[in-house]
């Protein structure tokens, strides 16, 4: 059974029709990637999944329950965490406070403490900088923080919006390695990326989205082999 099932999703910004009947599925344990050009509607889809936007039409079922139009906090509670585009760390707060906020809905102080250690073990740089204001972190460190913060909610499904944006190749590798590790430990991942090569290299399946519609879907291998995808998204080689 699929963990997340989106059917015929239509989302508007006022008169702008940003998602035009998007359907997709994510199965438990998978890494699914969503690629597409600027303005295709990738972030809009993630924001709708996490409750920041309300769909006008269509269904979103998560673990068999409808979450379309639910409040963001109940979606977090249900086990979906969203690392937004641009990281959106709380710049006016310390690294530690940011991580703490990720566990906002949790009450198990013992478990929170353990997960704190887990985040610091995954990202030792955050440990060194735990008292630093997060606005003073580098882009890569902010990405680590945003991911660590999201993991504090103990998500079953992690939505990642362009984690490689603006990062140097080495940092991109580090982040992708962490994504793989998080997935191995049992968290399902829906990954939005411009860096299609990287994304397809770690994904099980992929969807290509163009101007609000899914135009191609298949396994990562299929997409890597597809002439159309190569031409438009993989730099044409």
């Amino acid at each position: 059974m699929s963990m997340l099932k989106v059917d015929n999703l239509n989302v508007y910004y006022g008169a702008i029709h940003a998602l035009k009947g998007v359907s997709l599925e994510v199965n438990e344990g998978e890494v699914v990637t969503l690629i597409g050009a600027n303005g295709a509607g990738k972030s809009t889809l993630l924001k709708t999944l996490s409750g920041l936007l309300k769909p006008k039409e269509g269904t979103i079922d998560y673990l068999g329950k409808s979450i379309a139009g639910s409040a963001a906090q109940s979606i977090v509670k249900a086990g979906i965490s969203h690392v937004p585009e641009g990281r959106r760390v709380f710049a006016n707060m310390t690294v530690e406070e940011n991580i703490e906020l990720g566990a906002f809905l949790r009450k198990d102080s013992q478990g929170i403490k353990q997960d704190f250690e887990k985040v610091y073990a995954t990202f030792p740089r955050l440990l060194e900088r735990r008292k630093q204001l997060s606005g003073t972190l580098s882009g890569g460190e902010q990405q680590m923080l945003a991911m660590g913060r999201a993991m504090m909610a103990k998500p079953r499904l992690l939505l990642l919006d362009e984690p490689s944006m603006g990062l140097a190749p080495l940092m991109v590798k580090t982040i992708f390695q962490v994504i793989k590790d998080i997935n191995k430990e049992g968290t399902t991942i829906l990954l939005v990326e411009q860096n299609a090569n990287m994304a397809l290299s770690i994904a099980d399946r992929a969807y290509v989205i163009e101007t609000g519609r899914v135009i191609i879907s298949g396994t990562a291998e299929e997409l890597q082999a597809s002439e159309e995808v190569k031409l438009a998204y993989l730099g044409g080689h």
Partner: protein
Amino acid sequence: MEWLQQLINGISLGSIYALIALGYTMVYGIIKLINFAHGEVFMVGSFIGFISISVWGLGFFPALLLSMTACAIFGVLIERIAYKRLRNATRIAALITAIGVSLLIQNGVIYIRGAQPAAYPDVFANTSYNFFGAQISSQAILILSVSVALMLILQFIVHKTKIGKAMRAVSHDAEAAKLMGINVDNIISATFAIGSALAGAAGVIFGVYYTKIDPLMGVIPGVKAFVAAVLGGIGIIPGAMVGGLVLGVVETVVSALGFSLWRDAAAFIILILILIFRPAGIFGKNTREKV
């Protein structure tokens, strides 16, 4: 020791401004609204204190607590009834609504009890202490210690508690805060509650110190506290505290130098100078607006 005396008077006045300014700045920080009805919450708080003391015979501290609690509820009601639905409206629509709420409360109080002033009862024997040659009244000491205690409690709430951290997160990025599972509506209400409770406390303190209260008493201190908040950097909590104290001291100094007619003007001159030379305020960084 005349200057020391004036300094103490200035700090007492300034701490009242600071308590009111905190509400302005917290609400602005979280929803970018200048809540012009905030001065009226201060006024209502002062009347609740008055009734508690003179009608129900409560002492100062029970009256203070009652007024703070009632104002907290009042502030939340104002937010839920008048402002919540305007969350996505233009700023000017929200601002006009705030002015409307302010007029409604002023006239509502006048309708209920008339416009005549009331004399605050004495809750403390007014003894004076000699402090390095300056006369300090027990009331001045009381005002100062209550204000300082409230500001310390506020700092504790904002920096150490879960709700305070959520408030800072929402004020920085409400959407990202939602992704943490924070219920932004509840945090906005909590902000109104805390800011209004401080205004209520300021109202009671003001009554005890200046003894005369009336339904329009919130207007001038409200505007002055707004200036104090802008002076310190609107949206910045320590800024409101410092801005209030600076304004209180400046006003007192201006009067003491013999320009008492210019006292009220001082606040507006400061506002104009700040807006021209340092619009982000003393503590504000002149950074770009959040997008």
